[in-house]
């Protein structure tokens, strides 16, 4: 019930934040209407980083304690994170085309490292799908998740230096609207959007976590059923939503 309330408030909040960002706040003087995309872009980016942070901690937790809940948390974080980071890249490209004049700019370290970030966690989700045994899956995925977290800062350094080698920074910082000189309304629109998407993030993550726990117990039950005589098969746990 509480989860349903959370889901409904997430939808209401996103609609309200969208109306606020699209119609109430004035457009940026320099960037014009496309600047409104950044409210979505920045909010999803922050939440994606939060997701991968959660996944990293959960991966370490699994390797130390072998707690199935840690594996479910890691999966929920990675899956929601991939959705959010894909939205971030999509929104960024839609913003970049009118403002930078191009969808993709290899000289922008944030864009290139975010693309690698997406590829790393897609791999994390893929190896989970290809391993049947839950324990092995969790261990393999946890190692991949930890390597991804170690790799990311190195990716960031390498692409930042790469830009220095090939060309000077061509474009302005896309997150400039967040700096203190930004008018209060822009900051308010961004924080509103961030709050709305945080509710959606929470709702998605909790649901994915519960689903992962149910999948785990179903797999456990199926394995026990395969080992034990047919009569003693444990019934699948009821979802208590």
């Amino acid at each position, binding site marked *: 019930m509480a989860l349903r309330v959370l889901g409904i408030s997430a939808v209401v909040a996103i609609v309200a934040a969208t109306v606020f960002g699209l119609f109430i706040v004035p457009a940026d003087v320099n960037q014009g209407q496309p600047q409104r995309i950044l409210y979505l872009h920045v909010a999803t980016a922050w939440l994606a980083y939060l997701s991968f942070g959660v996944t990293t901690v959960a991966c370490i937790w699994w*390797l130390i304690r072998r707690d199935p809940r840690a594996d479910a948390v890691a999966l929920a974080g990675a899956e929601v994170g991939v959705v959010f980071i894909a939205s971030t890249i999509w929104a960024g490209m839609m913003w970049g085309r009118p403002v930078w004049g191009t969808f993709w700019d290899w000289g922008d370290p944030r864009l290139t490292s975010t693309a*690698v970030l997406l*590829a*790393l966690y897609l*791999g994390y989700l*893929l*190896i989970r799908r*290809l*391993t049947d045994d839950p*324990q*092995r899956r969790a*261990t*393999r995925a946890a*190692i*991949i998740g*930890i*390597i*991804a977290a*170690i*790799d990311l800062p*190195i*990716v960031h*350094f*390498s*692409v930042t*230096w*790469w830009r*220095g*080698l090939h060309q000077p920074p061509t474009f302005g910082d896309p997150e400039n609207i967040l700096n203190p000189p930004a008018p209060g309304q822009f900051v308010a629109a961004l924080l509103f959007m961030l709050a709305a998407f945080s509710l959606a993030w929470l709702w998605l993550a909790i649901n994915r976590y519960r689903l992962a726990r149910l999948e785990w117990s179903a797999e456990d039950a199926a394995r026990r059923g395969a080992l034990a005589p047919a009569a003693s098969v444990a019934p699948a746990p009821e979802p208590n939503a």
Partner: protein
Amino acid sequence: MSATTRHLAIATTIAGKDLRAELRGRHAVTSTLFLAAVTMLIFGFALGPDRDRLAAAGPGLLWLAVVLSGILALGRLHHLETEDGAFELLGLYPVSRAAIYLGKVLGGLAAMLALGALVVPLTVILFGVDLLAVAPGLLVVISLGSVGLAAVGTLYAGLTVRLRAREVLLPLLLLPVVAPLLLAAVSATAVLLAGDPFGELAAWLQLLAGYDLAMLLAGGVTYGLALEE
């Protein structure tokens, strides 16, 4: 014998075993050497025949050939280990997991260096890049790049070796992880050829060394978990 020398002895024994198996059977590295050579040829068709363009792309093509063939070689080296349950037996040895990992990395490193020894002259001949003029610096770049590739590639090969889709999965998982290594190695090679006008070489080498260290440590800690499952 101190703990460190015992670890090194175990590692060199395992690496020696892998190399002996390779020299006798030629199952893993030999075919990927041919693959690297053919890749270089195909790069020429894709980007040629303009000599200037090929020379400019030379460092990138060199490292692409090493990374793509290297990943396959590391996968093959591990796949050999799964025959007759040898990988499971490796996990049963009463020795440190980190030493086993180090041994597998050393075996992989030898394969990467063999790839480098083939691809570098091919870059000189086919693309007209004067790599011999910067040979000492290039040796450092190739060594650092090979260590990183072997370190992370060995760990991932161990993780995927039991999976059905390993041939596709290993490059798919590894390529994003080695992206910074590729970038740093290509940049270091290009900077070296340009005579390092802005003094950037040291920064790229440090990045490569940092990558190697991080992946060796991560592999040393986690490879045993992949073995024991």
